[in-house]
Structures are given as C-alpha cells and as structure tokens.
C-alpha cells in the first residue's frame, strides 16, 4: 500500500549552524561603500577634505577664538588709542625672539593676522569673511543643484519637442557671459549679498542640468525603468524616485566643482565693488582692502588670499577624487 507523503513545515529546518547565505570568498560591496573606499585611498582628495573641514571649523569658531567682533574697532582701554594697521603679533613668540614684551599700548594683546587700517582684528575678519563666502557658495549651489537637476531630468525624460525647447533655452542662457548678467542685475538690484546670490543662481544651474540630462538619457532606456512603467508608475515617480537617486554621483561631483566657482565669483564681485557691502566682509572684500594698502602694509592681503587659494584647491581636489571614485577606470580597480 502506498502512503501519501504529506509535507509539513517541520520537514524543513533552516541550517543556522553555518551562514551559507553570505559569500565570504567573494564579498560583494555596495556601490557607495566602494566609492567611499576608493575616495579614502586617494591622498589628494583626503588632503582636500581635511583642508575643507579645517577651514569650516575655523570659519565657525575662528571669530569666537579671537574674542573680537568682526566690525569691532579695537582700542586701548585707557587712552582710547586705536589699534590701526598693526602687523601680526603674538606676545609669546615676540618674547621668545627678542627677550622682551611689547611695550606699546597693546602689549599683551594677540593679533594672529594683525589688524587692518581701521583697527579691526584681521584674524576675526578673515574667518568671518570665509564664513560669509562659504555660506553664499553653499546656499546658491544647493539651490542651483535642485533647479539644474530637475530641469535636466525633465528635459531628458520627455525628449522630443519638450527637450528641444528646453535645450534651446539652455543654449541661450549659456551664451550670456556671467559678467553681463551681473551688469544687468546691477542696474536694478542694490549691491550686496543678494546680487551675488542671484547672479550665481542664474548661471550655475546650467552645468548641472546638462549633466542631469546626460545621465537621464543614459538611464532612461534601462530595464528597471521599463519595469517601473509597466507597473504603472507615473512620469513624476520615474523621474524623481527611480532615476534621480542614480544621477546623484555625477551631480555631486559637479557641485564640488561649482563651489569654488561660486567662491571665486563672490570674491571677484566683492573685489570689483558690487558684492558685499561694508561693514560686512567676505574673502573678496578683504582682498580688496588688502590690495588698497598693498604697497605699505603687504601683510594684510596674505591671509584672505591664502584662504581663498586653499578653498579653491581643496574643493578641486575633492571634486577630482569624487569623480575618480564614482567612475573608476578598469586599471584602477
């Protein structure tokens, strides 16, 4: 007689003694983990990152360390003498080399970068200026990223007539030099932070949109997009929740290259005199101040220039590192 086999749940036992689900010989890595490892092994990129972090910390805490306000004119308590145009002074170093303390009205006060011609502490001003410059750069570039990415993705996704019109518009917008935009803006906007921000907003999104569009064209035809569409996903969902996460790498690289451009543009506008207005300061306006006194007080121009150069350098290094980490060539792997 034949007995019918009845399979019950108890017949199946999960083998928990050995972890067979994980392949230990060929461990797979998530994409972002690989990017992170490659980035970490890139010395230049890490140097850049460290410089950026240091400058960030100093920009946040620097003005606090010195104990002076960025627009505070430093005077001697008793005689009301203003600390005008003092060269950098650190009492301890001075004593070390000359064996004596400073003997003037500001004995005992520390001015790491010296003071400017109105008697304000340059150390405080440089880091305050770096803070302003960085803030402008980050805010505008993040907004530009949102605008540029959406624009590029939408243009790339719908294609045909929509793409044609949107790309003609980009072409025209791209053909207006930035300084023309600044000039036209200056005719109806007051000089100041907002002029810089609007000028950057109007120009920097173009690069991002181009990259986002190129990524969209690359991804659009892949199977998972088709699967998503078959399952009934609407365009909005496909663009912003299926494609967007996969375009983030190249876009972030572009962001890293745009930030130095933004910092540079701000510095150059402030230098020309349409950017930051007094008593506010930024890297650019500090360079301008230093330049006005360069023949008599050359030490004043050095700190802002060095900070500017380091920022540009660091962001470029990080950008390069990210690009290499995101798209490794075969021989690097």
């Amino acid at each position, binding site marked *: 007689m034949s007995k019918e086999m009845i399979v019950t749940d108890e017949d199946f036992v999960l083998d928990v003694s050995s972890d067979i689900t994980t392949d230990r010989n060929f461990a797979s890595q998530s994409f972002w983990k690989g990017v992170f490892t490659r980035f970490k092994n890139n010395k230049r990129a890490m140097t850049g990152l460290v410089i950026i972090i240091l400058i960030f910390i100093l920009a946040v805490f620097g003005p606090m360390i010195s104990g002076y306000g960025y627009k505070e004119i430093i005077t001697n308590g008793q005689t009301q003498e203003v600390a005008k145009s003092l060269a950098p002074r650190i009492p301890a170093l001075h004593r070390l080399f000359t064996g004596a303390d400073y003997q003037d009205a500001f004995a005992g006060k520390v001015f790491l970068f010296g003071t400017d011609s109105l008697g304000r502490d340059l150390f405080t001003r440089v880091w305050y200026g770096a803070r302003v410059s960085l803030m402008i750069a980050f805010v505008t570039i993040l907004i530009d990223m949102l605008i540029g990415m959406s624009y590029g993705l939408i243009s790339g996704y719908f294609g045909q007539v929509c793409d044609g019109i949107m790309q003609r518009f980009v*072409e*025209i917008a791209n*053909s*207006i*030099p*930035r*300084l*023309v935009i*600044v*000039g*036209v803006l*200056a*005719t*109806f906007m007051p*000089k100041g932070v907002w002029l810089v921000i609007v000028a950057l907003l109007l120009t920097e999104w173009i690069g991002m949109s181009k990259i986002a569009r190129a990524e969209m064209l690359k991804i659009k035809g892949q199977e998972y997009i088709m699967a998503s569409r078959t399952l009934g996903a609407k365009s909005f969902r496909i663009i912003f929740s299926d494609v967007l996460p996969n375009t983030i790498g190249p876009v972030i690289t572009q962001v890293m290259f745009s930030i*130095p451009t933004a910092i*540079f543009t701000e*510095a*150059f506008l402030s*230098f*020309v*005199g*349409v950017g930051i207005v007094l008593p506010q300061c930024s890297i650019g306006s500090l*360079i301008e101040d230093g*330049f006005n006194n*360069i*023949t008599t007080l*050359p030490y004043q*121009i050095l700190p802002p*220039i060095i900070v*500017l*150069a*380091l920022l*540009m*350098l660091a962001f*470029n290094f990080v950008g390069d590192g990210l690009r290499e980490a995101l798209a490794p060539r075969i021989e690097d792997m």
Partner: protein
Amino acid sequence: MAKYIIKRVFMALVTLFMITFLLFLLVRIMPGNPFPSERMSAEAIAKKRAEMGLDDPILVQFGNYLKNVIGKGSFGKGSSLYNGAPISTVLPGCMANSFKIGGLSILIGVVFGLILGIGAALNRGHFWDTFCTVLSILGVCVPSYVFMIFLQYFLAYKVTIFPFYFDMSRFMGSSIIPALSLSLFSMSTIARFTRNEMVEVMDSDYVLLAESKGMYGTKLVTKHILRNALIPIVTVIAPLIVDLLTGALVVEKIYGINGLGKLMVDAISGEGIDYNYVLALGIIYSALYIGIMLVLDITYGLLDPRIRLAGRKES
C-alpha cells in the same frame, strides 16, 4: 560642410538677437531710475524721458535701438561715464586695448601651455611633469587677479622692471604683467589637458604599431601623437576665453587699462549706474562670446568629421 556652417551661423545670430532683446528688456523694464530723482524735478524727468523715447512702447524702443545699433553703429550716449559722450566714440579704443592684452595672453597661454604639456608628457614622472602638475594646481587655485597683484607688487613695486600702471606709451612693457597674469589659468589648463591627451594617445595601439615599424622621435610625435591629441584641446579653449573675459574685468581695473572690462566695472560699480553702457557692453560681450563659440565649433567640425556627421544625423 557648407550646410553645417550656415546652420551654425544662423543659430548664432538667432541666439544673439534673443539675448539682445532679453538684455534690452531687463535693463528697460526692471525697476530702477536712470535719473537722479533728488536732483531733478518731476517735470524735468518727464521731459527727459519723452526726449529719450522712454515713454514709447517697449517694442518700438527696441526697434529704434536695433536700428541705431545696426544702421549707425551707435549705442546711444552714456549718462555718467565720460561726461555723456556717445558710446560708439569710446568703445573702439577700449576694444583695441582689451583685444591686444587678451590676444597676447591667449598667445602666451596656448604656446607655453602646449610646450609645457608636451614636455610633461614626453618626460613622464620627471621634472617637467612635476612642474606641469604644480603649475596646473596653481592655475586652478589662484585667480588671475591675485596673481596679478603679486606680479605687480614684486615686479613693478619691489623691483621696478615694469611700470606699476598701464602706460600707453610703453605698451609692450606695461602689457607683460596683465597678459602674463591672465594667461596663467589658460596656460595651466592647456598644459594639463595636453599632457593627459598625449599620454592617452601615446598608450594607444596605433602609436605602438608606429613605434614597432621603426618610427621614433620628432616624426612620431608630430605626425602621430600631436595630431590626435590636439583636437580635444580646441574644446577647452572656448571656456578659457570666457574666463579670460571675466578675469580681464578685474585685471584691467587693477592695472588701470582702459579696456572693456574696466568700462564695465566703472559702469556698474560707480554711484550712478550707466544703463546704456551696461546694455552696450552686454551686447558686445555676448556677441564676442557667441562669435568665439561659433568659430571654435566650426574649427572643431573641420578637424573632426565625426562631429559634423553627428550633427547631420541629429537634424
């Protein structure tokens, strides 16, 4: 090829027209008053507006403006700069100065950039290579006007080899500093780009083949490597020229060169903003930019037939 060029030129003209209209619209429509209201009575302003045709419909104004620009080459008069002299009398001199300095710096940038880049690629890992890398890092992180300040301080103030300010009578001597500082960025970019392109080409199979056939030295470099390495360099020159325009703005201002850049700075940074100058310079800058792009596009098409064909397939 002719079809490609005609299409490009037409596109460029349309773009320029659109930009002119856009700029005109922005400058005229946006809030902002070209007349100092505290110094002029309301009637005087109204009279002046009518005289300048500011009360006409905007399209009529634009038509008149275009007619003047194209027909007579006149951009109207400035309001605060040069005591209100017609812009068209001020412009040619400024353009000449800017072009001379800009041309010189492009020349320095391209020639030295190429030499450095080729030198670096041929001596990979040696002194030239390191030098090229350092230069390209410097070029990226030091803006041209900062470099200019240094040059001015050391070469014109500490050691007085060159004049401290621009001097028309010593044109060559006084254009070295601005041209050199403007060329730093293009020089470093071209050097790095040339190096990378050449290294890529030198590693390719056909160069290996040429070498194994017994080709070496100058002939290999000029006939096989450079020809292919140089094509993409044309693409980087366009953005470099644009950077040059921006850089020239400050460099001209610092060095006291009467050029387009200084004119632009004076027009926007003074007490009263000079609307007509902003508009005229905006149009000229855009035209320059579009013109340069057009020329490079066509050059690129001539150099590399693939671009042309791709363009044709698309249209």
